[in-house]
């Protein structure tokens, strides 16, 4: 099953490679991984999307907890949570496609953030599924370039991950 694991880790050089190295060394899957410093500059927040049986997920969280740089680990799937991913897509937008692209972006609540005669760059956030759906809705040949951040996750309601 797919799990979203959130971590707080020391904002130290090499902390990221300890996490990614753990996944490769132990043969765990990484679907996506995103990381950035938090409001407390000494801490980074990481979201790892992985897949595995319950036993594997249990080992993943235990092994992550064991890393000295890791301060906290939460499997967001243990409760209600929200997941968002940001995607930037550069699409062909000339001739009759131009209107169509604008319409698609609107339907998916995307924003056009860069424009040339021939292209649009669309910014879109949502769950991974929504982003997939958007791409599937486009003509393959009209997609020039995509870049996705990987999911970020946060618990719903009062659930808080902090030190």
């Amino acid at each position, binding site marked *: 099953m797919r799990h979203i694991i959130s971590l707080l880790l020391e904002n130290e*050089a090499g902390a990221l490679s300890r996490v990614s190295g753990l996944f490769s*060394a132990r043969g765990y899957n990484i679907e996506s991984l995103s990381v950035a410093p938090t409001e407390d500059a000494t801490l980074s927040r990481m979201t790892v999307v992985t897949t595995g049986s319950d036993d594997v997920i249990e080992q993943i969280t235990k092994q992550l907890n*064991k890393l000295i740089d890791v301060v906290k680990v939460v499997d967001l799937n243990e409760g209600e949570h929200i997941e968002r991913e940001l995607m930037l897509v550069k699409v062909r937008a000339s001739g009759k496609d131009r209107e169509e692209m604008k319409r698609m972006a609107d339907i998916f609540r995307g924003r056009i953030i860069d424009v040339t005669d021939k292209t649009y760059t669309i910014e879109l956030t949502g769950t991974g599924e929504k982003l997939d759906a958007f791409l599937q809705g486009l003509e393959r040949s009209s997609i020039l370039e995509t870049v996705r951040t990987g999911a970020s996750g946060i618990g719903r309601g009062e659930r808080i991950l902090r030190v």
Partner: protein
Amino acid sequence: MELTGAEIVVRCLQEEGVEYVFGYPGGAVLYLYDELFKQDKVKHILVRHEQAAVHAADGYARAQDRKPGVALVTSGPGVTNAVTGIATAHMDSIPLVIITGQVPTPAIGQDAFQECDTVGITRPCVKHNFLVKDVKDLAVTIKKAFYIASTGRPGPVVVDVPKDVSIAKTEFHYPETVSMRSYNPVTKGHAGQIKKAAQLILEAKRPMIYTGGGVILSNASALLTELVRMLGFPCTNTLMGLGAYPATDPLFLGMLGMHGTYEANMAMQHCDVLLAVGARFDDRVIGNPKHFYNEERKIIHIDIDPSSISKRVKVDVPIVGNVPDVLEELLKLLKASKEKPDQQALKTWWTQIELWRSRDCLKYDRAAAVIKPQYVLEKMYEITKGDAFVTSDVGQHQMWAAQFYKFDKPRRWINSGGLGTMGFGLPAAMGARLANPKATVACVTGEASIQMCIQELSTCKQYHLPIKIVNLNNRYLGMVRQWQEFFHGNRYAESYMDALPDFVKLAESYGHVGMRIEKPADVEGALKEAFALKDRLVFMDFITDQTENVFPMIPGGKGLSEMILV
């Protein structure tokens, strides 16, 4: 007053009460060596290869219960040579601090002379590692390294010190304690879980106590022994746990696992309540987990590392905690309880176990015309009165030493279990001897393994380390040959040791005593003579039976009760 980085490193080692640093110099650590030279509190042992520096520090750490081992190596090849030693310590959870030189910080990443990515290379085989880029962080980093190495589940910690950091100056202050928000090892176990464990123990009809390296690492042998004796339950130890429970005690069933005894493996398979203490259900211990599940049993597992629990085998009562803390609580509950285990059931269980024991699974041909390796070890046990520190290398000789030398005390048996590193035995013996300056230290080895760190004979000469080397010379990579005999149609691919050196002359050329023993009748006399030479290293080259195999054996993929017996 401001001190240089190099001075700080040495001061930190002094503050930690480090007796010995095992190391080898080079460009990146010249300033560190200069400071070591200027003082005499911390003694340096010059090995002949960095792998041996780490093994020796490791042997030192295993052979006493006070301090981690410390090694010091230079950048680049010094580090890469040390990696085997670091990985060996990591697999067996041994507390070490390894200080490595690094090229100057501005040169990092420039493919500088003798540069390697030490933190990157060692990351998967350390408990933690640090690159110190600012001399101001040096003292606190070394403090953290000692703290991390020796608390929780112990392990090796690498501190990488660039050359310019060893020259830079700062005010020295060594913190008394450190606390890290991201590292807080547990000690006490969960009270409710311990209660559940006590209940299960009291209800057991066919109990079994299985303990491992965690009992040794946490110095909990006395508590374990008290618990086992109070309950009258059978007890087995893993290869890493030997000595935690006295091997000469009738409640002890011997080692379990791939080369464990028939009685230990059968009892493990057929018990109804299993108490696992500081042991990690290794694949060489329970064999195929599916087969293990064929029988039903309740499992209590005490381990300080949550990731050791329910990793290979699902357990019913996990207890995360430090062995002595948890055993103390457990003992308290059991002593206070009015219930006692069902004595009738226990008696029936013991009758069954004695039947298994009467299978005499370690028997061997005592009338053979060639020297049987088992015989050498039995005699060595007698002659040393079971009181030696015994290190070993890896192979058949290691298994025979584990089976035939009865360890009654912890930290006497020192071997590489997890990584299985040939070359470990001799340098580990050096560390063990330095940790116990008056003790008898023997290294049980094979003609192949000993050649992997043979250069340390020179170190032994320099520092007067009178180790007794018991070379069980079967002219084969015996353990490899055994597998080839059993599973590869007797095709002995590259497992014959040809062109062996004359070990007697070799020992002599290093300034030691060499002996060759070729007849069973000479074994006892030679051992007596060698062990009586208290202040000399003696290399005993026993020419042993080439075809002897280690029994029992659980073949790969098989279960505990599927042993090949002699």
